[in-house]
């Protein structure tokens, strides 16, 4: 894969023809992308290994349930971002309606668990099946449109799903939502593996899911599918003329991305223990997914992970009024002043404002996201 943030050093000047005396000389070469050879590959692999070890040992050293909670949300966000990236970053279809798949996965898993005591690791699969059907329906509507029109349509259909969930009371309990009573313990062949009364099993489950999702994204991108996806993103009509059926591949990308988003939804439902249309099908979720990828680096493998590392702690810190506390503690603003009171009451709800500022900053200074920025930094070293 090539460095995406190449500012074309040749640009329009490349249209100039060399002087006749220089005709034998090739024009200065365009940016060369860095391959992963030798040392770099080793470095990459060791980093990966160390990170995995740290992640697996994390609950042994950190006992705070709150820390585990943040990690679980971070991992879930990574799953959602990585799977969105397959459709968005790689295929170039920027859906802002992925909450639809998240919500369907959440609801089916929850409903099956509550009404029929089906354990979530079984119940999530009918959820996935339904997610696939819905993805195909949504795709058949939205893929007729391109670019920003597709984006708008994706928002529209997700909102339709949310409103349907609000109103189909028989199915979803409407705005009241569904509360989980108990998550069954995981037993294999009669032997108890784990119960789900603490956060630790959820942590490991989400970690495994994240690894699987990233692995699948990696394999997809290296395969013919990945190349076809990217061709469609770059120039759909050119790809079409080269033997690629855009509708087919767009739907494949959509289905892959919807499946993992739906699984994440099912997991979220069981972990949080409560679903309602405004928490699992809201536009907020769709937006957060896209933001994660923009900040981390659209179209990169680890972009969504980095983006989650940035976004999730900030979102949680806002929710728990952490920033307000810091501001008061450092004495920047007094708790009793007008500003102080205002901050205390409203900063927690400012996540949308903070997101907006983040997006502006990223677009202005790091349009290719953190990963793109890091690549750019590395390339500025003398050759």
């Amino acid at each position, binding site marked *: 894969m090539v460095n995406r943030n190449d500012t074309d050093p040749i640009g329009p000047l490349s*249209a100039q023809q060399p002087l006749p005396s220089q005709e034998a000389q090739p*024009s200065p*070469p365009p940016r060369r*992308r860095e391959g992963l050879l030798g040392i770099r590959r080793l470095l990459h692999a060791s980093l990966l290994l160390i990170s995995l070890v740290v992640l697996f040992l994390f609950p042994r050293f950190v006992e705070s349930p709150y820390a585990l909670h943040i990690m679980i949300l971070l991992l879930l966000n990574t799953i959602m971002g990585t799977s969105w990236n397959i459709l968005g970053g790689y295929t170039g279809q920027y859906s802002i309606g992925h909450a639809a798949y998240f919500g369907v996965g959440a609801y089916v898993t929850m409903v099956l668990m509550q009404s029929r005591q089906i354990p979530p690791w079984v119940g999530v699969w009918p959820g996935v099946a339904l997610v696939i059907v819905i993805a195909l329906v949504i795709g058949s509507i939205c893929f007729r449109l391109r670019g920003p029109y597709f984006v708008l349509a994706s928002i529209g259909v997700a909102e339709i799903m949310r409103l349907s969930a609000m109103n189909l009371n028989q199915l979803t309990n409407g705005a009241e939502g569904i509360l989980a009573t108990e998550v069954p313990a995981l037993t294999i062949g009669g032997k108890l593996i784990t119960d789900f009364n603490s956060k630790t099993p959820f942590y490991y489950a989400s970690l495994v899911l994240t690894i699987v999702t990233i692995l699948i994204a990696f394999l997809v991108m290296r395969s*013919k599918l990945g*190349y076809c996806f*990217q061709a469609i993103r770059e120039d759909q*009509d050119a790809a079409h003329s080269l*033997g*690629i059926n855009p509708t087919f591949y767009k739907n494949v990308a959509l289905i892959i991305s919807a499946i993992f988003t739906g699984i994440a939804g099912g997991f979220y439902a069981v972990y949080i223990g409560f679903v309602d249309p405004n928490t699992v099908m809201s536009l907020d979720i769709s937006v957060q997914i896209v933001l994660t990828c923009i900040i981390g680096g659209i179209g990169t493998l680890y972009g969504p992970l980095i983006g989650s590392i940035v976004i999730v702690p900030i979102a949680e810190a806002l929710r728990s009024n952490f920033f307000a506390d810091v501001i008061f503690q450092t004495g920047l603003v007094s708790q009793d002043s007008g500003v102080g009171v205002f901050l205390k009451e409203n900063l927690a709800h400012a996540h949308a404002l903070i997101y907006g500022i983040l997006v502006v900053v990223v677009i202005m200074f790091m349009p290719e996201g953190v990963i793109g920025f890091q690549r750019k930094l590395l390339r500025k070293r003398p050759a």
Partner: protein
Amino acid sequence: MAILELKNVSKSFGGLVANSDVSFDVEQGMIVGLIGPNGAGKTTLFNCITGYYPPTRGEIVLSGRRINGLQPDKICKLGMARTWQKVRPLTNLTVLENVMIGAMCHTNSVKVARERARQQLHLVKMEERSDFRAGGLPIGERKKLEMARVLATGPKLLLLDEVMGGLNPAESDDIIQRILGIKQSGITQVVIEHDMKAIMRISDRVVVLNSGEKLAEGTPAEVVSNQLVIDAYLGKPMSDTYYV
């Protein structure tokens, strides 16, 4: 048997008639030059026959099979491929990846595609550029890239739309050599060009379009001495210097 038969192909966009009753055959292995003033309907004809949009009337027959209304990807898989008048590289992918995507028309293996891509890049002398971002290439190399990419799809019939547009004489010569090499390997070609010197050098037959209609058809010599063609397109009789 003719590899491509066009029978009364017509294309209108609402009231605008872009092609009107265009008929000619392309025999296997030859190079047909397609010339005419800008706006004559040459690119529209290419778009019709490659499935970008269906013709309003008429038949398009590829190797004996009627292909009206088939999708472009299907037509590419059937062996007819085209390049674009305004080059369309897949900008953010590397040169090699661009050509690999062409090669994937007939294989599902990334490895095989990569090998075929390298071969095609070798034939246009662009292997050292393999890892460069396609968007950063100058126009001459973009055109070569587009040719390598379209040849990687393994076509029997290749439609080239002004591949020499915007190139200097050395680059044009490179392309001409490549076209002749392609002919050697048995691939049939239809070439839209304004460069008459090139057309004379490479074409076995020439078809002239004007205002959507076929004006003339014949050997290059016949066509350039056709008074109608001279009036509509060439401007003045071609002197001997055009014959290379």
